[in-house]
């Protein structure tokens, strides 16, 4: 686990983004963004509010109008429909949880399980490094016992944090080539934040994670590389340590002044 923090020798990247732009309601909000996500470990996307982090993730999935190239395992997918891209093995934890309020917790999870045959390549080959579907299920159950208890409850009546758990669980239930995770710890109690961070760390050993996160402790704990976005453009990429160890750079890119990661005590 401790080794996960070191950059690995250059493997073929799982995800390559080249010159990606995204438009929302006729306005371009992401401009010409390029970066790569290597075969394992966490790559964090950082930036202030409204700079286009979420939009970048959504553009990769084709959930917003986009142009540019997106390659998954070397294959261009930017012309494909979202569901196709996802079935190639992309797990997504959206920013606003987006649980299906009218369905029960169990139904939410059942829906998320991609069945063999409809899943990504790995899925078709049966048991993988991530174990079987059943094993993944156990892992998720262990991580969020609350959800087991509330299997029959309508997701809309869950507390904010519980909904976040459902959203995470949906992504973790499947065999993925990559996870796109948008602010997973938002609204979670400190104890759960720690647990989620650990889970992501474990997952990242085999599946690369592209993580949007504001909590710098979590970034520090997980990320190997960072991509910093400002005003819809990539303004910095590099190893996480390099950024976090340089207070001046943090101040310049993220607007956090020295010592402020501990926030106004």
């Amino acid at each position, binding site marked *: 686990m401790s080794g996960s923090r070191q950059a690995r020798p250059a493997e073929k990247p799982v995800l390559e983004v080249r010159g990606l732009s995204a438009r929302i309601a006729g306005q371009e909000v992401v401009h010409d963004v390029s970066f790569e996500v290597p075969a394992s470990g966490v790559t964090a996307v950082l930036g202030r509010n409204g700079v286009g982090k979420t939009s970048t993730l959504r553009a990769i999935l084709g*959930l917003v109008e986009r142009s540019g190239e997106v390659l998954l395992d070397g294959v261009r997918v930017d012309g494909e429909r*979202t*569901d196709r891209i*996802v079935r190639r093995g992309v797990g997504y934890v959206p920013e606003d949880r987006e649980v299906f*309020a*009218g369905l029960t917790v169990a139904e939410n999870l059942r*829906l998320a399980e991609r069945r063999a045959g*409809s899943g990504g390549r790995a899925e078709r080959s049966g048991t993988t490094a991530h174990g079987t579907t059943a094993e993944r299920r156990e892992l998720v159950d262990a991580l969020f016992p609350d959800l087991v208890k509330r299997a029959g409850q309508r997701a809309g009546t869950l507390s904010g944090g519980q909904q976040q758990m459902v959203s995470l669980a949906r992504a973790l239930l499947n065999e993925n080539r990559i996870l796109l995770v948008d602010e997973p710890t938002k609204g979670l109690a400190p104890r759960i934040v720690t647990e989620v961070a650990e889970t992501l760390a474990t997952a990242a050993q085999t599946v690369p994670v592209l993580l949007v996160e504001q909590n710098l402790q979590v970034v520090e704990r997980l990320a190997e590389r960072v991509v910093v976005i400002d005003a819809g453009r990539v303004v910095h990429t590099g190893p996480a340590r390099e950024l976090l160890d340089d207070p001046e750079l943090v101040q310049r890119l993220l607007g956090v002044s020295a010592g402020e990661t501990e926030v106004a005590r």
Partner: protein
Amino acid sequence: MSTLVLLLATGLGLGGLYFLVASGLSLIYGLMGVLNFAHGSFLTLGAFVGLAAGNLVGAGTWGGLLLGLLVGALTGAAAATATELGLIRPLYNRHIEQVLVTVGLSLATVALFEGIWGPNPRNVTRTDWLASTTDVLGAHVPNTAFLNVLAAAAVLAGIVAFLRYTRYGLIIRAGVENRAMVTALGIDVRQAFTLVFAVGGAAAGLGGVLATQSLNYVSPHMGASLLIFAFIVTVIGGMGSLTGAAVASVVVAVLQQLANFYLNNTGDLIVVLLLALVLLVRPSGLMGRPA
């Protein structure tokens, strides 16, 4: 006594008819949020085409009726599928516009049907059994009442099973809430929605052919005239609740029969009153989820 029996039995039969019309409407409305004003047109089209097919085998024969039902359902499904693909899907996520498009479609199609088949109702030849009555406790109950109730029960069971025991049911319910997210889970939600429309259309086509058996006519306006009750039944029953629609169909029809007979033809007014009352007391309908 025999009058009351007759009122109840025919009320039940009428309820079956209402449900046959409402089932597809309620399905599409409940699941996709599209209040489909063109539903009546699916029904009319199914009835015309179904009857024409049935007449090839023989008007007034059971074989003809069965073929008519099949062809009617297929016609309804085809029309609905075309509507979904051509008109509803491009308006993805614009619910009001989707409703409006169906309004436009219903206006256009009724006029088109008039152009093709003429404005006047045409009479239907039924099998001898359907044209006669069965004695129940001294009342001569028209056999179409039995047919309607049976068919309604079958359609209800069929659709509920489809929703409950197929994965599509789940996909559809989730897709209604958040289509983008279902897609982001790797599911092609569009097929599911098209399927809903097709099933709804099939129910309409089936209902259309069956309706001609009790109405004894087929006309370009038959769909539209039945639609208003289908709307009412759908809302009273609770959005998206098929069982609710079924219960509401029976309640509305029986109440209507009784009020018409005993309360000086006030059936329609009573039904409207019932609708207002139900919505005020339980805005989500009899069996809808509380908001």
